[in-house]
Every structure is written in C-alpha cells, then in structure tokens.
C-alpha cells in the first residue's frame, strides 16, 4: 500500500476485555514499530520488529501486552484484560531498515470504559 494502514481507527471496549489492533506496513519495509501516545505527550515506544522477530520489546508495560508479526509484514498488537489506563492512541510505524526514518499510520484510538 501507499502508506501504513491501521485498523480499526477507533475501538471502544469494556474493562477486562481482550482487544487486537492491526498494522499493515509499507510494502517492503522490514522494520516495524508500535508506539503509544497519550494526549499532549510524545509517542512512547512499545515494541520493535525486524522481520518476523521482536528485536526489542522493552517498552511493553506488562505481560497483558503482546505483539506478533508472523510473516514479516502485518503485525497485531494484542492487549488482554484491558484497563482504563490502557486508553490511548496506538501508533504503528515502518521503515526500510532499522536505521532509516519511520513512517507512521494514522493510529488506533483505544478507549476502555
């Protein structure tokens, strides 16, 4: 595709439910990043994939958060037992390689009620 695509654009879920957020990167980009952004703040790193493997997951806040990228393209961020504090915009970005600029999607706004 022309750019990074994220679905859904908005997700409202009840506390305790499980959610999946999808990211479709730019074709041919091997590096994929997930970030979380709260209102008025800069993006906060969650996890980075190089190909199919998670090269750095040090930003995941706890074991309720998990991400996969099974074929080295589309990635899914999974959040179990959602809490109200998980409410934020989840951003996905991809880059040609790990040391070049990253291009972001529009984000998924997650609201936990």
């Amino acid at each position, binding site marked *: 595709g022309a750019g990074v695509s994220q679905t859904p654009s908005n997700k409202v879920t009840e506390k305790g439910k499980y959610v999946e957020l999808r990211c479709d990167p730019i074709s041919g980009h091997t590096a994929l990043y997930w970030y979380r952004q709260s209102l008025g703040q*800069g993006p906060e*790193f969650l996890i980075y994939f190089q190909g199919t493997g998670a090269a*750095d997951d040090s930003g995941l806040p706890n074991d309720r958060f998990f991400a996969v990228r099974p074929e080295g393209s589309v990635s899914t961020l999974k959040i179990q037992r959602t809490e109200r504090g998980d409410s934020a915009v989840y951003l996905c970005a991809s880059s040609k390689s790990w040391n070049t600029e990253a291009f*972001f999607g*529009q984000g998924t706004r997650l609201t936990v009620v």
Partner: protein
Amino acid sequence: EDQVTQSPEALRLQEGESSSLNCSYTVSGLRGLFWYRQDPGKGPEFLFTLYSAGEEKEKERLKATLTKKESFLHITAPKPEDSATYLCAVQGQGQNFVFGPGTRLSVLP
C-alpha cells in the same frame, strides 16, 4: 538512557513571524535525529533526518540544524497551515526512536 526534551511547550506566532523550536537530547551514540509534524487526530508525518553535527536540511519554510547536544527547527515566515505539533526523536544504540513531548505551534493569520 536516551532522553529528549523540547522547548517551548507551546508557541504562538503571527503569520510571517519567524522563530525556532528547540530539541535537546542525551543519547549514547547518536545514529540519527528525526523531526516530525503531527496534526490533531493524525499520525506523525516525517520531515527530516539529521545524522551528524553541522548538518542542515531544508524544506519549504522549514530548516533543521543539528549540534552535538541539540537540534533547532527554524520556521521562516510561517503560514497558518504550519500550525501543528512538531516532534523530535533520536535513535541511539537501541533501535527504537525516543520522542520528545513536542512543541505545539499556532500561527495566527
């Protein structure tokens, strides 16, 4: 730990009034410094990459410069459509991007 701060937090300019935004960073082994623009409700949009001190990049009314401790985004004769949040990020020895909190720029007609 890599860190990025940005100042001012918010800036209001009249159309045509030039100014600069600051990004100060602490990083072990800078691989690149990145500037992004973010409009409300949108993802960050890539503007520039700077790799070494002394490097400069320009695009329309924007010019980014880099020293060993900070980067500046100079805005010359801004227009209302330049209103946005400007984010600075660094990539050090880790492979992720560390972002600052951003500067919210408003350009009044």
